[in-house]
Structures are given as structure tokens and as C-alpha cells.
């Protein structure tokens, strides 16, 4: 029974009789910040890394195809760089996801996993299938290796995320997904090389905008705001 006496003593010592409202507000703000840090699926450093990956990958694709007449598509070195950058971004995202969801359970986590699979399937299948079909029917390189791989993933994945965000009434995510879809539409008409530039700029702006909106939303909910 010694242990239970200890527990009772600790609990009494930690009751809020002398807790000032200002101190409570400070504690609440601190706890919110720490919880956000612990469970955050898109911490600032990951957003910055994604931003860098987008700028480097799409910038390299644009630079390697700029001024090509006729259009042949990005060279293999650039394609390898893009795949490496995407692999680094995916590895970092998986690490963050595992850390943030460790010990977390319930239907919402399962829903997040299903959403992740839906996004991955739309990303992996969408553009390559269209490219294959276009190549099969004799479309030019500017369509198969330019417009489609630059614009289609944005439209397909963006539409998938748009549906997910609408079902959850997550309006910052909905706005970001809509921006990505619109970027894809603009990229589709920006020419085979310009499509990479338009897609990169649009994706970067959409991602930074979402991070800012999400941060503002959390700040508004804080009692100290």
C-alpha cells in the first residue's frame, strides 16, 4: 500500500488549487505546442525539405528541356536526380509519419492509412498509364515526356486529395489541393518545357500556402492568441 500513498501524495501536490489563470493559459499553450510537435505529420523542416525537392526537381527538369527543338524530354541524369530527390522526400515523410503516429490508434489512423494508399495509387498509376497509352497511340515526345508527366500527376493526385479534404471538411487542405489541380491545368497548356516550370512554381506556392494556413488555424485556436 506504500505505493498508493505515494500516488495520492503526488496527485494532491499536483492539484490546481494555487494555479493562476495566467499560468494555466501559459501551460495550456505550451502543452498544445508540444502535442502539435509530437503528432505533427508535416513539421516545418519537412515542409522546407519538400519545398527544396520541388524546386530542385522541377527546376532541373525545366532547365534540361528548355529550348529543345524538337522536344525529346529530360535527360537520364536529370531523371535520376528527380527520382533520388523524390525517394529522399518519401523516406523523410515515412519517418515523420511513424514517429508521429507511434502509439496512436483508432479509426482515424486507419482512415489516414487508407487515404495514404489512395494518394499513392493515384500517383504511381495515373501518369504512367496515360503516358503508356499516349506512346502506344503515337503521341509526340512533347506530350508523352513533357505535358503528361508534368501536368497529369498534379491533376490526378490533386483531385484525389480534393475529395479526401472535402469528406473531412478540411478547408486549408481543400484549398491547397484545388491550387494543385489548377496548377496542373495551367501546366497542361504551358508547353512541354514550360509545363515543368509552371508545375514546380504552382506546387511550391500551394505547399507553402497550406503550411501557412495550417499554422494560422492552430494559432487562432490557442487561448493566448
Amino acid at each position, binding site marked *: 500500500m506504500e505505493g498508493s500513498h505515494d500516488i495520492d501524495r*503526488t496527485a494532491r501536490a499536483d492539484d490546481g488549487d494555487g494555479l493562476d489563470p495566467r499560468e494555466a493559459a501559459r*501551460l*495550456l499553450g505550451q502543452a498544445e505546442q508540444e502535442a502539435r510537435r509530437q503528432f505533427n505529420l508535416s513539421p516545418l523542416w519537412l515542409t522546407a525539405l519538400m519545398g527544396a525537392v520541388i524546386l530542385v526537381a522541377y527546376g532541373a527538369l525545366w532547365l534540361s528541356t528548355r529550348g529543345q527543338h524538337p522536344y525529346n524530354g529530360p535527360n537520364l541524369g536529370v531523371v535520376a536526380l528527380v527520382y533520388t530527390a523524390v525517394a529522399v522526400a518519401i523516406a523523410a515523410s515515412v519517418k515523420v509519419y511513424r514517429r508521429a503516429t507511434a502509439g496512436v*490508434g*483508432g479509426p482515424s489512423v486507419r482512415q489516414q492509412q487508407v487515404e495514404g494508399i489512395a494518394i499513392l495509387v493515384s500517383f504511381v498509376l495515373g501518369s504512367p498509364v496515360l503516358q503508356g497509352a499516349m506512346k502506344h497511340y503515337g503521341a509526340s515526345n512533347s506530350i508523352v515526356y513533357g505535358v503528361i508527366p508534368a501536368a497529369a500527376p498534379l491533376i490526378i493526385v490533386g483531385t484525389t486529395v480534393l475529395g479526401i479534404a472535402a469528406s473531412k471538411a478540411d478547408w486549408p487542405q481543400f484549398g491547397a489541393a484545388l491550387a494543385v489541380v489548377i496548377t496542373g491545368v495551367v501546366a497542361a497548356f504551358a508547353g512541354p518545357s514550360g509545363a515543368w516550370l509552371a508545375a514546380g512554381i504552382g506546387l511550391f506556392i500551394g505547399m507553402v500556402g497550406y503550411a501557412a494556413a495550417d499554422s494560422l488555424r492552430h494559432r487562432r485556436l490557442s487561448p493566448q492568441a
Partner: protein
Amino acid sequence: MTADPLDPVIHAPARLRIVVTLAALPEGASLSFTRLQDVLDLTPGNLITHLRKLEDAGYLESETTGNGRASRTSIALTRHGRTALDTYTAALRDLLAGL
């Protein structure tokens, strides 16, 4: 200064941190006892005592699965608990506005 309008179940440092931490999860999500202890840096005995008080008030629900060393306890904020935190936050805001 008195803090009467503030819910005494939540208005204690450790319990406030517990409720806020669980409220950061999506509705319906639960957190394992070990992860909660890790996040809050509380001793198991201290955490159990505060969880019991919150559970008695209907703010939390816990579920233990498995047996012995393989058992896992997960804790989730109830809808009642989430509403209580919202009410507490609003009361705190009002109190601070009057200072």
C-alpha cells in the same frame, strides 16, 4: 485570485496537459499509455492517478487489450471531455480578458 469558473477536474497542471495532449489527436483516436507517459514525462503512478480522476469525470475512456507483459492500455478523450476542454478554454479566455 480564485479560479471558480474553471473546471477543477481540468484545472490542475498534469490533468490540463493530459487533456490538451489527447485533444490534439483526431476525434476518436486513442493514445497508448506509454506514449502518453513519454510525451508528458510523468511517472506511471502519477499518470494513473490523474487518468483515474479524468475517467471518473467521464472525460476519458481507457481500454486494455492483451494480458501480462503484452498488455496495452490506450486512452482516448471522450466527446464530453473535448467539450469540457472547450468550455475550460473559453472560461480561461474570459478570465484573462477581465484581468
